[in-house]
C-alpha cells in the first residue's frame, strides 16, 4: 500500500513538473524554516527589494543590492507581482506584511513584525531582464514562485518515512530526556493510567491528545525554544482543529495493536494524518523545488542553552532529509526536479555585531553539517551566510572606563530583558549581547535548557522593526538589510546571467 501511494505520488510530481517545464521558465524557490525563523519577513523583504530594484532608480540613490549582478549591471528592467498559478491557495499578503513592518496607516510607531503565519499562501513574481550571455542574449524573464506556510508544519515531513510504532517510541524516548521530562510530566502521568490494548475510546484519545499538545506547546515557549516537536499541526492546526486526524497521541506499542484497541485507533489516525495532511502538503509545495533557502533562527536556541541547540540540529537534519538535492540536468528538470542550490542562512544577524557573524556562520555550519554533507555529496551547491532580511539595528562602540565593547543600537521589543534591565519598547538602547565562542562545538556541549538570563555568556534581545525612512518623494525607502543581496545572487543570480 505505501509502495502504491509512493508510486502515484511520484507520477503526480513528474506530471506536474513536466507541465511546469512546458508552461515556461519558472523557478520555484523553497523558503524553508521552522516557526519564527523569519520566513514571512524574508519573503516580504525579498519581494520588496526586487520590486524596488525593478523600478527606475531615483538619480543619485545608492543601489541597495550591489551584489545582485543583473541589477547592478542595469539589466533588470521590471519586476511585477503576478496572479499565482494555484487557484486554491490564498495569495501571500505582501502588502499587509509590508504595512505591518513600516507601521502602515498607524504611522511609524505602529510598526511590528508580522503575525505568525497560520495558513499556506503563495506569491508569483516576474522579473524581466536582458541576458548578456552569448547565444541567448536579448530580453527574457524569470518567474519566481514563493510559498509561505506555518513553519510548524515543516516538522511533519520526517513523519512520512516513520511508522506509528517508530514515531511513538522516538517521541516517548525524547520526552523522557532530562531537558523535557518536567514539561512532559502531566502527559506521561496520564499515559501510565491508560491501556493501549484496551478498547478504543474517543474520550481517552481526546484527553491524551490534549495533554500531548500542551506538552508540545510548552516546549516551544521562548524560554525553552525546543524545535523537534512533531506533529506540526498540533501546534498550528489550521482548519483541521478538532478533526479525528488530529486527535491522536503516541502510545507505548510493545503489546502490539489488536484490532479495536486504543492503539489500533491511534495508529489509524496517525496514518490518516500522514495521508491527508502531510503528503499533500509535501507534494504540492516541496516536491518540485529548484532552489532552497533554509532559514535557521539559531539565536533563540542559543539563548535557551545547549539542549535547545542540539534539538534544533535534530529538527533541521530530519526536515532536510525529506528534500531532494542534487545537480540538475535536463532530464531531472523535466521529471524529477532537484534542488541544486541550497543556502543556509542564520537569520536575525542584525541582533549581533558584524564581527561575530563569522562565529554565527560557523555555528550554523556545524548545526547543519549533516544536511550540508549530504547536499554536497550529490552535487548541489551550498553556501552558509548570516542574514538579516530586515535590519533593525545599527552598530556602535561603547566605552566605559577602560573597556570598549562592540554593541548594537536598536529598540528592543517590550518585555525583553538583558543585564537585569527590562525594556518598554520605546527607548533606543545600545546592547552588548556578549560574544559567541570561537569554537562552534562549545555551544552544543551540556544539557542546560532555559538558562536564566543572568548566567548566560550571551543574550540576544529581539528588536522592533527599524523606523521606516521616508525619501524625497514621500514613499518609503527600501528596508535596510544585511546580505540579502548576496542571498538573492546565490539563489537565482545565475539564472539571470
Amino acid at each position, binding site marked *: 500500500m505505501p509502495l502504491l501511494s509512493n508510486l502515484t505520488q511520484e507520477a503526480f510530481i513528474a506530471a506536474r513538473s513536466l507541465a511546469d517545464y512546458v508552461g515556461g521558465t519558472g523557478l520555484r524557490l523553497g523558503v524553508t524554516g521552522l516557526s519564527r525563523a523569519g520566513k514571512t519577513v524574508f519573503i516580504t523583504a525579498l519581494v520588496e527589494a526586487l520590486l524596488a530594484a525593478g523600478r527606475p532608480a531615483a538619480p543619485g540613490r*545608492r*543601489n*541597495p543590492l*550591489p*551584489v545582485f549582478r543583473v541589477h*547592478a549591471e542595469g539589466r533588470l528592467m521590471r519586476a511585477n507581482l503576478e496572479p499565482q498559478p494555484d487557484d486554491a491557495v490564498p495569495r501571500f499578503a505582501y502588502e499587509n506584511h509590508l504595512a505591518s513592518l513600516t507601521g502602515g496607516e498607524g504611522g511609524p510607531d505602529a510598526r511590528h513584525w508580522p503575525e505568525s503565519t497560520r495558513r499556506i499562501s503563495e506569491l508569483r513574481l516576474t522579473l524581466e531582464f536582458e541576458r548578456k550571455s552569448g547565444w541567448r542574449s536579448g530580453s527574457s524573464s524569470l518567474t519566481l514562485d514563493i510559498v509561505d506556510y506555518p513553519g510548524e508544519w515543516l516538522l511533519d515531513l520526517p513523519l512520512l518515512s516513520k511508522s506509528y510504532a517508530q514515531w511513538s517510541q522516538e517521541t516517548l524516548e525524547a520526552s523522557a530526556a532530562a531537558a523535557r521530562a518536567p514539561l512532559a510530566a502531566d502527559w506521561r502521568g496520564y499515559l501510565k493510567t491508560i491501556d493501549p490494548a484496551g478498547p478504543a475510546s474517543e474520550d481517552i484519545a481526546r484527553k491524551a491528545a490534549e495533554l500531548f499538545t500542551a506538552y508540545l506547546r510548552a516546549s516551544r515557549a521562548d524560554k525553552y525554544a525546543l524545535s523537534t516537536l512533531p506533529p506540526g499541526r498540533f501546534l498550528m492546526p489550521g482548519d483541521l482543529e478538532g478533526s479525528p486526524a488530529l486527535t491522536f497521541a503516541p502510545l507505548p506499542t510493545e503489546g502490539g495493536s489488536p484490532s479495536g484497541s486504543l492503539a489500533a485507533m491511534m495508529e489509524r489516525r496517525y496514518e490518516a494524518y500522514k495521508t491527508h495532511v502531510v503528503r499533500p502538503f509535501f507534494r504540492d509545495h516541496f516536491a518540485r523545488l529548484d532552489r532552497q533557502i533554509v532559514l535557521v533562527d539559531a539565536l533563540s536556541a542559543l539563548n535557551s*542553552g545547549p539542549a535547545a541547540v542540539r534539538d534544533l540540529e535534530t529538527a533541521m537534519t530530519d526536515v532536510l532529509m525529506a528534500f531532494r538535492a542534487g545537480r540538475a540536468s535536463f532530464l531531472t528538470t523535466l521529471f524529477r526536479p532537484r534542488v541544486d542550490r541550497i543556502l543556509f542562512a542564520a537569520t536575525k544577524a542584525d541582533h549581533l555585531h*558584524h564581527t561575530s557573524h*563569522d562565529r554565527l556562520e560557523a555555528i550554523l555550519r556545524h548545526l547543519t553539517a549533516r544536511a550540508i554533507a549530504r547536499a554536497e555529496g550529490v552535487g548541489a551547491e551550498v553556501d552558509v551566510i548570516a542574514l538579516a532580511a530586515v*535590519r533593525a539595528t*545599527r*552598530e*556602535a*562602540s*561603547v*566605552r*566605559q*572606563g577602560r*573597556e570598549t*565593547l*562592540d*554593541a548594537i*543600537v536598536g529598540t*528592543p521589543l517590550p518585555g525583553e530583558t*538583558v*543585564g537585569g*534591565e527590562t*525594556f518598554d519598547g520605546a*527607548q*533606543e*538602547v*545600545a*546592547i*552588548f*549581547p*556578549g*560574544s559567541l*565562542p570561537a569554537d562552534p562545538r*562549545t555551544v552544543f556541549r*551540556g544539557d*542546560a535548557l532555559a*538558562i536564566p538570563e543572568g*548566567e*548566560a*555568556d*550571551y*543574550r540576544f*534581545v529581539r528588536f522592533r522593526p527599524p523606523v521606516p525612512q521616508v525619501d524625497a518623494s514621500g514613499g518609503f525607502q527600501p528596508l*535596510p*538589510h*544585511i*546580505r540579502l543581496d*548576496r542571498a538573492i*545572487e546565490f539563489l537565482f543570480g545565475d539564472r539571470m546571467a
Partner: protein
Amino acid sequence: MTDRPSERTPRPRAFRLEDADLGALAPERDRIVVESQPDVFAQPDDETRDQEEIVESAQKKGIVARSLMSWGGLFWSAAFGLVTLAMGLWFDSLLANLFARTPALGWIGVALIGALVLALLVLAGREVSGVLRQKRIGQMHIALARARETDDTAAARTLVRDLTALYASRPDTARARAHVLDLTREIVDGRDLIDIAERTLVMPLDQTVQHEIARAAKRVSVVTAISPRAIVDLLFVAAQAFRLVRRISEIYGGRPGMVGFLRLLRSVGAHLAITGGMAAGDSLVQQVLGHGIAAKLSARLGEGVLNGMLTARVGLSAMAVCRPMPFAAEPSPGVKDVAPFLFRSGEP
C-alpha cells in the same frame, strides 16, 4: 555556561542612550560613551564601482576577450597560413636546388630550416603563454573585485594564493608573500584579506609603476620641447607610450609578446577612450592653465607639457588594466599624482 568562572569575559548588558548623554556628569571611571560606528553594510560609492566597471569592460575588450577568434583574427591567420605555404614551397624548391648542386650544401640548408622552425615554435609558444598569462591576470582582477564585493572568504583565499604565485619569481616580494600566505590560513574576512594583499604585495609595484610613468612623461615633455621637427616628437611619443605600456605590464607580472601586446593595447585604448572623456571634465582647467602658462613662455614648451600629460594618461590606463586587482584599499592615482612636475608653473 562554561567552566571558567575566574576568567573575566564581558557580560551581556544594555546601555540606555540617555544614560550615555548624562554621562558627562558621572565620575570619569563610570562614564559611558556610545559612539556610532561606520556602517560596514553600507553600499560602496557608486563612483568607485563605475571606475571598476570601466576597467573590467576595457579588460574584456582586450586581454580577457572571450574568443581568440575574431574576423580580424581569421583574416590574419588565413594570410599567415598562405604565406607559410608559399614559404614552404619556396624552401622545398630551394632545398631541391641545393641538393642538386652538392649534397653538403643541401644538408646545411636542412639544418638552417630546422633551426628556423624551432625558433618559430619557441616564439609562438612564448606568444601564447604571454597572452594566457595576461588573460589570467585580467581574470584575477575581475575575480578579486567580485570576491571583495561579496566578502567571500573562501574565494579570497584561493585568489590571494594565486596572486602570491604570480609574483613567486620576484625575490623582492618574498617577505610580503610570506606574510599574506600566513594570513590565508588564519581567520581573516575575505575583504580584509584582499585589502591586506593589496597594501603589502601590490602597493610596492604601484610605486614602481608610478615612477616609470613619471619618467616617461618627463622624457616625453622634454624631448617634445626641444625636438626640431613635429614628426620626430610624434614618433618619440608613440615609442615611449608603447614602451611604457609594455613595462607596466611586466611590472605587474605580465609578459606580453606581440599578439599579447596588441590585445593589451586594445584594452588600454578602450580604457583611455572612456576615462579620457571623463577626465577632460576634471582636469581640463588644469590642462588649459598649464598649457597657458607654459605657452606664454614658449609654444613648444606648452606642447611638451600636453604630450607629457598624454603619456601619463596612457600610463595610468595601462596601470588600471594590467593591475591584478582593483584599486580598493588605496585610491587610484591621477595624472597629478604621477607627474606633479607637469603642473608646476612654467618649467616642464
